[in-house]
């Protein structure tokens, strides 16, 4: 198998996240590389993440503002946003990472890029960001559908 860049792997995840959001919540999501002109500033307050163990270990994360998380989980569960509890948001965002990862794991199985995954986990706080060492390879995608804005990141660790 020819080599796959981390940008291509990021696209695999972003495309699969789009599929998950279309299937489970009915959103048509578009994805661009982070840092492009016109990308709005967002201040994430909730993040779902997972560690991937493979030939190279990596961390993936989905970061978003609370209102995006409420909207997503509401559409996915059919429960009104005002009826969702905080634990629903953390669980839902973590599970979103898990579901996004499943098909990518299957596609990369039996290749040099295959990986095992940890349980997903979630973080909360004001203006969350993950900072990696400068020399580590990483990639970022900004996914949007109307008011829904999500930042996906992958970085070798």
């Amino acid at each position: 198998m020819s080599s796959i860049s981390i940008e291509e792997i990021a696209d695999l995840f972003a495309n699969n996240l789009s599929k998950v959001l279309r299937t489970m919540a009915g959103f048509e999501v578009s994805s661009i590389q982070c840092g492009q002109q016109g990308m709005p500033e967002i201040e994430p307050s909730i993040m779902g993440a997972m560690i991937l163990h493979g030939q190279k270990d990596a961390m993936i994360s989905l970061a978003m503002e609370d209102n995006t998380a409420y909207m997503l989980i509401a559409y996915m569960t059919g429960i009104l946003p005002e009826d969702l509890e905080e634990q629903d948001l953390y669980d839902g965002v973590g599970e979103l990472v898990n579901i996004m990862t499943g098909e990518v794991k299957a596609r990369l199985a039996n290749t040099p890029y295959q990986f095992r995954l940890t349980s997903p986990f979630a973080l909360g706080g004001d203006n969350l960001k993950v900072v990696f060492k400068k020399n580590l390879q990483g990639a970022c995608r900004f996914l949007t559908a109307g008011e829904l804005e999500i930042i996906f990141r992958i970085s070798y660790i």
Partner: protein
Amino acid sequence: MKVLAIDDSIMVRKIIRGAVEVLDGNLIEASDGIEALEVMEEEYKDIDLILLDWNMPRLNGMEVLKQLKADRRFRGIPVMMVTTESERKNIVRAIQAGAAHYLIKPFTIEELVKRIMESMGKGE
């Protein structure tokens, strides 16, 4: 109809609850394999279908499936795996271990309802 949903995600259990309620069924929940086996001891006579996640803490879905199928009290209850595990070899493993149906996440609520009906012998 009584369904046992075994999944460590609250969100997924809520989605399943929505589907079961569409079918006028009752849902019992377990958040991992150990809890599921405890529920089974108490409730197995009333349970018509088990929806089982694969990756869970403490006791994973494949181990739960093996234990269910090894127990003559439980083995007749159909099990549908509901999981992100989509590698062909894992699907085959689950079917060989006794899973009657296999649903890969992500799914639509309509798909879930349809698969539950099929699992209950009420397919279209």
